[in-house]
């Protein structure tokens, strides 16, 4: 059974094709890595999945329900961390966490406190004073404090320091161990390597490859058989491949 299933999804903004016939599946209990350069269409895919944008053609289904029509029902069982966290300048971090959690379910106080402590967030400060990293922590705490079946995380660690990034990996592993499914878009290879069961690569609106990370690396190997050892290298190889194909 797929938690999340995208079939031939196309999204156009006017003449610009942001997503072109995208196909993706996330299985139950799987952490799926979604990687690709900036502007490739990762965030657009996620916004279609969340019912914020409507698909031009094709289908996006979560828990077997339509991402656009059944958005409210679906959202009861998912947690989401956006890549660009925008918060209300005159609410405190603590208030926003409570608001975000309660718009889905009853909040679990112990879990909330444990996460606030772990991520070293001062929840009494107004959001206007938070740095990008702190705003991301607010969204992460709200997501991890929720009891969801599917977690959609859009570059959630781009503003965090390495230690906080480590805590993030821990929390995702916890989710994985308790059988939750995760869609993780990321730029950090080590994160993807440690967390993801399978990976999809998107370039210029096309998902050009899905498989395990090892499979991906192999298919992007150099002529001498050396595997790419960084995300940059992997991207560069795929860039060349996609340039030739598209």
């Amino acid at each position, binding site marked *: 059974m797929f938690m999340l299933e995208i079939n031939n999804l196309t999204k156009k903004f006017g003449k610009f094709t942001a997503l072109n016939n995208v196909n993706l599946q996330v299985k139950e209990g799987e952490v799926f890595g979604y990687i690709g350069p900036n502007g490739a269409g990762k965030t657009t895919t996620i*916004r279609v999945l*969340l*019912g*914020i*944008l*409507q698909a031009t053609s094709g289908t996006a289904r979560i828990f077997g329900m339509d991402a656009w029509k059944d*958005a*409210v*029902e679906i*959202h*009861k069982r998912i947690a*989401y961390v*956006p890549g*660009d*966290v*925008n*918060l*209300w*300048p*005159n*609410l*405190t971090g*603590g*208030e*926003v*966490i*409570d*608001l*975000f959690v*309660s*718009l*889905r379910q009853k909040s679990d106080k112990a879990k909330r406190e444990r996460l606030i402590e772990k991520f070293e967030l001062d*929840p*009494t*400060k*107004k959001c*206007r*004073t938070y740095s990008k990293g702190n705003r991301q922590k607010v*969204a992460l705490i709200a997501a991890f404090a929720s009891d969801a079946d599917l977690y959609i995380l859009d570059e959630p660690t781009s503003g965090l320091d390495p230690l906080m990034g480590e805590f993030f990996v821990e929390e995702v592993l916890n989710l994985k161990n308790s059988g939750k499914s995760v869609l993780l878009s990321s730029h950090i290879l080590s994160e993807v390597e440690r967390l993801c069961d399978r990976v999809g690569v998107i370039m210029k609106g096309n998902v050009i490859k899905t498989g395990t990370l090892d499979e991906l690396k192999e298919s992007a190997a150099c002529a001498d058989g050396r595997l790419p050892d960084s995300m940059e290298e992997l991207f560069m190889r795929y860039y060349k491949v996609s340039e030739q194909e598209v």
Partner: protein
Amino acid sequence: MRGNFDYSGKLVRFMLRRERIIAAIWIIVLVLFTVALAPGLETMFPDNETRENISLIYDNPIMVSMMGPVYDIDGEYTTGTIYAGMMLLWVMIAVAVMNIFIIIRHTRADEERWRAEVIRSLPVGRLANINAAMLTALIINVILALLTGLGLALTGIESMDFAGSMLYGAVLGASGLVFAAITAVFCQLSASSSGAFGLSFLALGGSYMLRAAGDVGNEVISLISPLGLAQRSMVYAENELMPLWGLLAIAVAFTALAYKLSSMRDLGQGFIPARIGRREAKKSLLSPFGLSLRLLKNSMIVWIICMFMLGVSYGSIIGEIDRFVGDSPAYLTLVGLTPELLDTLSESDKADMIVDGFGGFVTVMMTLIALVPLLMFAMKPKNEEADGRAEGVLSRSVSRPRYLAGYVIITFIMSIIVQLCTAAGLYGMAASNETNPFVFGKMLIAYLSYLPAMWLVVGLAVFIVGVFPKVSGVIWGYYGFICFMMLIGNIPDLLPAWVANLSPFNFIPEIRVTSFDLFPAPAASFTPLIIMTAIAALLVTTGFIGYRKRDLITH
């Protein structure tokens, strides 16, 4: 310390570039307003006799506390002295607001968004940014002062000579600079732009209140207030220069203080420690409706108080209004009466009729002002969406209609609250006079009868948010059109009827607010009100449907 001000000049040019459109609009509107009203005043008070009426206003301490003193030349008022007495204070307040915005935009707001950091990383002096902001304000105020002075001098009104007009402009610019400098100090004290806004507006309100207290009591108190001090230049009467020097000295002193404080603090920090906020949310916040209420709450309170106070101020002059305006033709046109009609009436009926006309005029004015917060509230979900915050709520288990409904419901409730508060303030104050011309029931009906028209405009805003969010500026254009139509609406045959009928305010039945019933008003037809309410409902419904169907605005 060498180099503290390095590159101020380049930054000034950069700031002026960012300011050019907004500042140009401010200057054009203020100068046009200033210059256009002078001839009107001349027609309203054509001779000494009518000008004597002005003293009646100034016998009333409430009026003096609202408007400040008006000065005479050897016991006689001129158009110039009346103009300075009625206008200077209000225009100074507008100019102060402009300056508060300029300074905060270029100092604290830029710091808050970490734009100042980028500038500071360039080889610019530590004080260059605040110095450039003050210089930018200086340049804008000087332009405003010159244009205002020249504009007034060019009206050719005898009692408004060149020296007096230039002094008027200079005092205006100088008082603007004082508030720029005071704001610059607050931008050092508070670590947030909203905090700096709050303190600056508090200072402006405080200056107004101080001079109100001083003008009716001990004049020395008025001199502490920049606004009161500025009025003491007795423009077009004595043309005193000392207040002008005083204002400039205050501006320089506050500027120096702001520089000193700025050099003592770190970028992004303030001297007032940020208050510790709530660790956990109150229950009342935890719903889409609760969130929108929380976001609009402060604004609601401020607007309700403002509308009530405006009602009170108009209520306080209502007892004098017939003696004050008398049968000035300009006023009669404004309220839609003719001298011929008045000639057929007895003195007391005439007085009643004038008050009634004035009451009707005030109702329209107040309703137009009340529409400003309503439109702001109705457009709020669009701004939340554009700033990426709506996504945070809608990616949770909240449907689009439920999210939008929070703002729409609050806006409609607010429309009823403001109309009731204005009517209450107006009636309450008028009732404290010896003679109260108003009938409460009638007044209430008059104010509530504007609700359908207000709803129609709000409905249009909801429609735009739901269906055409990218052209949301249209709603303010429509609002401007309605205001314009109210100003020129009573001039017969100026515009074809269909143009006038584009304004919903054109369909409000005339409702008397006093006991005057000599001529029954044309039988009030309430059908248009029902139709307008229906149109409003249709617009809101379409807006909701559109909002459910479209993509959210994303970047």
